[in-house]
């Protein structure tokens, strides 16, 4: 092909015209911060991890712990908390392992597979968090209704007004809980879409391209 030959010839000649960076500049360059996709995925997952831990610390302040103690529901709360931390700890380990395993010295396809595997871990982590938040909301509402004396008094008051009102009361509680879950889910999903969806869009397209080529044969 004439064009390719022409290009090749120019490629060889112009390769002599590139600037020569001195050692000092190169030292400065290699010590700068990378902004590669993988690094961002790792940083974001660390931030997320910190956020969830913070949320659980804030929600477990002394006062609310005392309140829970008076309800005698430790048998639900403790296993749930321990389970939550175990799972988060597990994800943290996998995130770190994924990050460490990603190496630019592998072939391109393998590298892409590893990055996409990291993304899969993130996806599982997101799903876990969403399910966990929703379950916590359901358990929390149940505990409040059955144990909180103020809520009990309120229900008794409503009951005195008529059985129909109690049903309406419960419907409202369920409605608000579902609304809260939907809102949290929507916010988190939007957030994850923005971060991971956009971050990995081009990589996904390239991976698809490479994979198509392999399956064609």
């Amino acid at each position, binding site marked *: 092909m004439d064009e390719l030959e*022409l290009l090749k010839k120019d490629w060889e000649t112009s390769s002599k015209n590139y600037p020569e960076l001195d050692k000092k500049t190169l030292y400065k360059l290699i010590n700068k911060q990378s902004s590669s996709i993988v690094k961002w995925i790792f940083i974001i997952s660390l931030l997320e991890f910190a956020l969830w831990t913070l949320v659980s610390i804030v929600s477990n302040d002394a006062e609310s712990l005392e309140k829970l103690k008076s309800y005698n529901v430790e048998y639900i709360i403790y296993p749930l908390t321990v389970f939550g931390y175990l799972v988060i700890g597990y994800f943290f380990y996998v995130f770190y392992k994924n990050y460490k395993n990603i190496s630019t010295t592998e072939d391109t396809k393998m590298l892409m597979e590893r990055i996409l595997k990291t993304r899969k871990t993130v996806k599982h982590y997101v799903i876990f968090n969403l399910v966990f938040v929703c379950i916590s909301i359901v358990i929390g509402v149940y505990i409040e209704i059955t144990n909180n004396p103020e809520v009990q008094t309120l229900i008794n008051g409503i009951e005195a007004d008529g059985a129909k009102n109690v049903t309406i009361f419960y419907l409202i509680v369920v409605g608000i809980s579902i609304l809260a879950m939907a809102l949290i889910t929507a916010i988190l999903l939007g957030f994850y879409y923005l971060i991971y969806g956009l971050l990995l869009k081009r990589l996904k397209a390239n991976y698809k391209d490479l994979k198509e080529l392999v399956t064609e044969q």
Partner: protein
Amino acid sequence: MKSTSEKTFVELLQKHQNIVHKICRLYTNDVDAHNDLFQEISIQLWKAYPKFRGESKFSTWMYRVGLNTSITLYRKSLRRVESQRIESVAYKLSYEDYDDTKDEQLKLIYAAVHKLNDIEKGIIFLYLENKNYREISETLGISEVNARVRMTRIKTKLKTQLTS
């Protein structure tokens, strides 16, 4: 203090920096983006350097890391601010070639090459560097047959673009 390995690495990088420049030339369209990618590839090379065991030539190893960075890790849009910092390091490139190619025909060819997707750019880059299909397939993780098929397709693609 600069470590011995850092010193050796910078010497090797300086010696073979042309490879990085050439990758940048195919994957970027302007000097800013070129500087950005040059920096990112250099960082990735340095990060991967402990894994370089000298089994392959340093230059061969550079092809792999450089292309992987361009295809999988690099995101132009995130880098706008960084590139200005690089310029302040007095890192200058004279890139008349980008828009002042002597030959009109060549200019069109480069424009057509820039329109290829990231993987195709990788294949054509290795082709221009006189790599054989085995080396192309090893770098990208596809079979030799696939590399051949894709190269034929790239040739057709370029021809169609240039004749239209």
